[in-house]
């Protein structure tokens, strides 16, 4: 039976985090399986982004920890998380504004490439070849998220929707096993949300596991294989969308009883 169970990619065990007196996360435990789209929802302030930040190393948990792909995840080392295969986008979009769209994606390749200072100065064959590959991969990714026309524009001059796509392209450039999207549909209209849905589906089809934090409940329920609900820092329920939608506690959490 275990041969058919998809592999556990990420395991969170009793993760706790507080800021001063505020308990942002209270012993949250959940699991994400390889190949699924996993949704994380909850009212504002429930701790979703805090959970995210603990997982990706921006915050250090005050209790509990994570296991990724079988090995424990080191806290407070976001660059190591990326090297391990966890990529993320940000709720407030954090692009490299004064670099072009293409350069943003090219720098996403940093963690999977290795040319150093000496290579840069002397331009040996290996460095040149790597540089060509980086550029090509970046162009391919811009095509993948459909903003190839914006390649030479400064990232900060892109439209809001294009910026979100660019951030996803940059995250994909790191060849992640787990892609974490923090409210990617925020501020989007129905058409844009639908295009985003297709993109995320495509990313999963192409082999990346996805963790999605979202407020757009319709998007989450329609897209995710499993959903976890947080409220006041605690896990309320973790199950398939059909069950979660009907759960009384979830309805109360969102509508305030």
């Amino acid at each position, binding site marked *: 039976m275990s041969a058919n169970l998809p592999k556990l990619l990420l395991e969170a065990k009793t993760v706790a985090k507080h800021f001063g007196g505020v308990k942002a996360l209270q012993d949250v435990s959940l699991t994400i399986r390889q190949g699924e789209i996993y949704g994380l929802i909850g009212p504002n302030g429930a701790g979703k*982004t805090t959970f995210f*930040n603990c997982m990706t190393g*921006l915050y250090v948990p005050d209790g509990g920890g994570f296991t990724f792909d079988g090995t424990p995840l080191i806290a407070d080392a976001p660059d190591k998380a990326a090297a391990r295969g966890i990529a993320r986008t*940000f*709720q*407030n979009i*954090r692009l490299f504004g004064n670099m072009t769209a293409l350069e943003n994606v090219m720098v996403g390749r940093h963690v999977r490439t290795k040319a150093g200072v000496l290579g840069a100065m002397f331009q040996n064959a290996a460095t040149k070849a790597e540089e060509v590959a980086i550029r090509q991969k970046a162009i391919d990714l811009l095509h993948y998220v459909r903003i190839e026309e914006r390649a030479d524009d400064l990232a900060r001059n892109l439209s809001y929707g294009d910026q979100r796509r660019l951030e996803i392209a940059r995250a994909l450039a790191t060849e992640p096993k787990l892609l974490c999207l923090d409210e990617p549909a925020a501020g989007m209209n129905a058409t844009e949300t639908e295009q985003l849905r297709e993109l995320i589906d495509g990313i999963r089809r192409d082999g990346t596991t996805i963790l999605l934090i979202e407020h757009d409940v319709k998007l989450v329920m329609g897209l995710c294989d499993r959903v976890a609900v947080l409220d006041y820092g605690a896990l309320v329920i973790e199950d398939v969308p059909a069950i979660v939608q009907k759960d009384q506690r979830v309805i109360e959490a969102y509508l305030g009883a």
Partner: protein
Amino acid sequence: MDIFLQQIINGLVQGSIYALVALGYTMVYGIMGLINFAHGEVVMIGTLVTITVAGTLLNSGMPVALAGLAGLMAAVLVCMALGWALERIAYRPLRNAPRLTPLITAIGMSIVLQNLAMMIWGRNYLTFPSLLPKMDFEFAGANFTAIQIIIVLVSAAMMGGLLLLVYHTKLGMAMRATAQNPAVASLMGVNVNRVIAAAFVIGSALGAVAGVMVGGYYEIAHYQMGFMLGLKAFTAAVLGGIGNLAGAMLGGILLGIIEALGAGYIGDLTGGFLGSHYQDIFAFVVLIVVLMFKPSGLFGEKTGDRA
């Protein structure tokens, strides 16, 4: 222990001066997030104006007390105007610019003021007129003078006055609100421009008084004196927690004492390798250590970086 008390007293006096100057830095940084590099130069101009005004009046026969007072008033007025002009002309147009731009502007203004001072007052050291009685006292083996007492008392009075202003007046409340959140403060009806101007003007006034004290204490002045003084006062502000008034005051005094003790004992500590002319290094070392280990200073708040 023979020089310990002496150095403490010296440190207290120098520290009071640092505290007054530090307040100017901390108020501006607290409200605008800008290091007003030119503040040290404002202090320097206060000293030089006093020399010119008081010196001229003394020469024309005016009694010492009156000439001194007139000199002080002139310094305060000139510095207040200078502070106001700095904000209005150099910094206000850059309110929304990225951090680097106002910093470079501040450095530029500092250079401009220094060189204007050199052009007006010349390159040479100037003597500060003798305005206060020269009385010496002795206590438990340490010497101190009337001037030192006056400096500490006047500084304490000014700091007390500032705290009264900030915590018990409408303007003070407006300043505190603006320091926390300028956008919301303006929505609540606070005239942010005037608050910022007030911060500069008040800081400059305090700086002018500090300048007069420096002149009276060391009896000389020079167009370049603002640089080191400003840097050390800024260190004091950081030490106490930038943006925090009480922090700036305590930071100033603490820095003065650290410097004095350091200068007094450094010969012994390093077996004669480093002499007291390394004194200036103490402030820098304090600065570096504080920023490395406790960047929020003694009383500052931790501002985390929430993604």
